[in-house]
């Protein structure tokens, strides 16, 4: 359904171009930095720069999931209500609307996975991004990806519940909430760079731990000689935090979804059109 506005090949190109362009912005920022950095010819400095670049690049790759899932899930209700005007037919059909939203979110995750894989492969093959995934870490990687994506979908459903009763602010919120995560979750820089209050905000968001865990699994051990994240605990501790927060957001999403749906039904806004 996400690709029904164009032919498949063009949709594939579209799905790749945006995230790869975002990744290239980081590449060029890094290039600009290395050109003007004092002492950039020193091998030790170059090694540190490459480690930091790999840190930034991997974080940006996984943020593709965050942006696509949150933005896409947030907009499902508005899209069905305002653009396609099919929400009333889906809503009265004998399915769980919550499950329907999850299904639409799953398609966003699938498209994002494709874009993330392309982006990461490009970084490894052409940009010198250093990744090392040990065989013993594969189960941890699979479980952490599953929990992280589940958490993202749950957060997305929480936001989608808000769109039941909003009109003009959906787009702003859909961009703003991922923007908050973009800044505070250590996506493009370790949260140690932020002021203390910013670090505390970051530690309260589960996405921070998901990104940190993926980096710990994928990046070589010597990366941490040059990057300090200020996130304490071993991998299993981070995984446990992720599990707890995923469960918490799942239950919150159910509560908020039911509440938003109830308020919208009571006000007769399930299928309202507002021209936004």
């Amino acid at each position, binding site marked *: 359904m996400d690709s029904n*506005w*164009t032919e498949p090949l063009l949709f594939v190109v*579209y799905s790749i*171009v*945006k*995230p790869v*362009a*975002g990744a*290239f*912005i*980081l590449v*060029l*920022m*890094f*290039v*600009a*930095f290395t*050109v*003007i*950095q*004092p*002492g950039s010819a020193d091998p030790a*400095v170059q090694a*540190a*720069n490459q480690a*930091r670049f790999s840190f*930034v690049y991997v974080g940006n790759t996984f943020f593709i999931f965050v942006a696509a899932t949150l933005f896409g899930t947030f907009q499902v209700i508005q899209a069905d209500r305002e*653009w*396609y005007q099919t929400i009333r037919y889906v809503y009265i059909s004998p399915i769980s609307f919550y499950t329907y939203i999850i299904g639409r979110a799953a398609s966003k995750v699938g498209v994002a996975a494709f874009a993330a894989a392309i982006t990461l492969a490009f970084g490894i093959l052409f940009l010198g991004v250093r990744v090392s995934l040990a065989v013993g870490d594969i189960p941890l990687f699979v479980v952490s990806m599953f929990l992280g994506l589940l958490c993202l979908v749950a957060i997305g459903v929480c936001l989608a519940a808000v769109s039941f009763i909003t009109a003009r*602010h959906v787009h*702003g919120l859909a*961009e*703003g909430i991922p*923007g*908050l995560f*973009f*800044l505070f979750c250590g*996506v*493009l*820089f*370790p949260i140690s*760079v*932020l002021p203390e209050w910013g670090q505390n905000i970051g530690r309260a968001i589960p996405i921070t731990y998901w990104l940190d865990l993926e980096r710990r699994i994928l990046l070589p051990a010597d990366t941490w000689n040059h990057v300090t994240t200020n996130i304490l605990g071993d991998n299993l501790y981070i995984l446990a935090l992720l599990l707890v927060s995923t469960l918490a957001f799942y239950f919150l999403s159910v509560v908020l979804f039911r509440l938003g749906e109830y308020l919208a039904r009571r006000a007769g806004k399930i299928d309202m059109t507002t*021209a936004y």
Partner: protein
Amino acid sequence: MTATVNRVTLNLRALVGRSYPRIIGANREPSWVFFETILPLLGIAAYVFIYHGFFVDAIKSDDAVLRTAALERLNALVGFVVLGGTMIAFWLNVLWSMASQLYWEKEVGNLQLYMMAPMSRMALLGGMAVGGVFMTGTRAIVTLAVGIYFFGVVLVVSNPLLILAVFFVTLVALYGMGMMFASLYLLYGREAWHLSALMEEPIFLVSGFYFPVKALGQTIAVGAAIIPATLGLDALRQLLFPPSSLGGLWVADPVTELLVLVVLAVVFLILARLSLAYLERLAKREGRLTSRHQ
């Protein structure tokens, strides 16, 4: 009894009328203060902290000369990000409030009313542009001021008249481009929304919104000059930051870039006029002016 209205007066009235919603209406609800000034700062802040992360060792160095040089260059790069983030507001306004506007009007059902009204289509687009510049400008100024204050950017205003000239000519060229795109979008259906979405990150990349565009190489930077924001940002950065901090990372000198921007502004405005007339005839012939939800 009918009154004869001067055509120029009529089109000026149309221009004022079309800009009115963007100058007055868009500011009625105060939520714009949060959504259109505070939220963009989040994205800017993220890119600022990328540079902070890169420079973290150099800033903490025991070598005072190295530390000073690093701070000067960090200030320049942070300033680039703040300026680029501010210019993004104008580019997004061009994409979503200029280029896509006639598409939205078609979806809502207003387009045929505009086509029937006795005014020049350019007056319609001109009103959208004037209103867009005002609306985005108020937000951009707040974002710029807060960004400069919050991130401690130090600017060197060496030639204020040239800075203002570059800025305003860049806007004229940008919105002229937007007016040209608006007519192209008359032919599109749902692809219009996705086309605008597609022209966000790739344009941020090739125009150097967050880094000196020369980092792409001189050839690509010159090619990217077709986007007015490319040379506009390059010139503004040269005029606002000490040349010693980033020597050799400019496409051309500011005066040359200003002249190119003037040419772009004229060319885009002419193309907007020609393409609007042609595509209106084409859309009428193929019956797309009133086709909604395509």
